[in-house]
């Protein structure tokens, strides 16, 4: 009886010890095609962390290597598809993106680093996907692209990729961005779902820990749209919805006010990190 009790205590103690696994982000530097990327930087004023760290540092060696070379990066095929769309004429006005914006390498430089920004027309923050649709409907006489369809991910990635390496920095002083930032912050810290988890539960309180086999990162979005090894080319709002689904909560609609506020806030959380679009993640 006593032996059974000791064995029982030992088993419980053993279980308790294994349930807490932690690992540091790797000490490594990222250069994409030889171009240095900022993947660790001092956090902006008022940030919960001292240092802002890219999700790249929480990945296995093989995953990190895939991002180093645009040849190996599986998402570059999607970026090239985006380039084809950039040049494709669409809509009643007979224009393509290139008709007004010319060479994306010049005209789109900085976009990936500065969006989402304030849109005076809709009185809301606007991201690249919505800006594409705005241009399509207002300038091109074309239909808005439905969420994650019609090449939206590919075109967004192509545009953001033109800012590769540039540090993320959005303007919160413009329009009402500050109040949307506040709202996004509230979304970030509010527990939801049957599992009662907030974004912060994993990405702030749990950062560095393992959730099953996933090494929890700070949840930065400087690399979106990303190539996920588990599910292929993935957009930001798809991932937001996926994370929320994983807490077993009702998923907000893509580009809803809730998710636009969240995008505004989470972009700010990555201030200073280089645009890595398209990043490679598990």
């Amino acid at each position: 009886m006593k032996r059974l009790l000791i064995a029982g205590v030992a088993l419980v103690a053993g279980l308790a010890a294994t349930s807490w696994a932690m690992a540091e982000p790797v000490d490594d530097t990222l250069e994409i095609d030889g171009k240095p990327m900022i993947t660790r930087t001092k956090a902006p004023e008022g940030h919960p962390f001292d240092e802002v760290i890219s999700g790249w540092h929480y990945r296995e060696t093989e995953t990190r290597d895939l991002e180093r070379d645009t040849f190996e990066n599986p998402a570059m095929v999607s970026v090239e598809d985006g380039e084809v769309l950039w040049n494709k004429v669409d809509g009643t006005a007979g224009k393509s993106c290139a008709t007004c914006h010319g060479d994306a390498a010049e005209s789109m430089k900085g976009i990936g680093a500065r969006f989402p920004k304030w849109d005076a027309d809709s009185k809301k923050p606007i991201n690249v996907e919505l800006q594409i649709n705005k241009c399509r409907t207002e300038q091109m006489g074309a239909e808005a692209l439905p969420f994650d369809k019609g090449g939206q991910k590919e075109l967004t990635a192509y545009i953001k990729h033109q800012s590769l390496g540039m540090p993320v920095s959005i303007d919160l002083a413009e329009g009402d961005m500050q109040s949307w930032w506040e709202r996004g912050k509230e979304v970030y810290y509010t527990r939801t779902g049957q599992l009662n988890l907030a974004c912060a539960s994993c990405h702030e309180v749990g950062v560095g820990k393992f959730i099953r086999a996933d090494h929890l990162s700070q949840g930065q979005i400087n690399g979106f749209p990303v190539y996920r090894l588990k599910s292929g080319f993935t957009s930001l709002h798809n991932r937001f919805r996926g994370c929320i689904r994983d807490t077993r909560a009702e998923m907000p609609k893509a580009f809803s006010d809730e998710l636009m506020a969240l995008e505004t806030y989470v972009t700010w959380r990555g201030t200073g990190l280089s645009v890595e679009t398209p990043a490679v993640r598990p």
Partner: protein
Amino acid sequence: MASKPRIKVPKSASAGEVITIKTLISHEMESGQRKDKDGNPIPRKIINKFTCAFEGQTVFECDLDPAISANPYFEFNAKVPASGTFKFTWLDDDGSVYEAEEPIEVK
């Protein structure tokens, strides 16, 4: 179909050195086995041949069949005797020819 194919050839090499070349082309490689939602077969449209030549001499050649999936990727070795240009061609079922070239400097 997408823009230009991706080629990776080292910028320089020493004479007689064996280098690794990587090529990737965007192509749906429609096998001809699939059917659309109305049940009609989607016609086959694949890249059926890939060649790599160095200064006119064939270095690598490959016939592709429908089993090859989308965006065919080739990685192969080549020995470079002197500076010159690698020429790559992809032949499509519909007769289109996609071409690319990359120079290499031999020190």
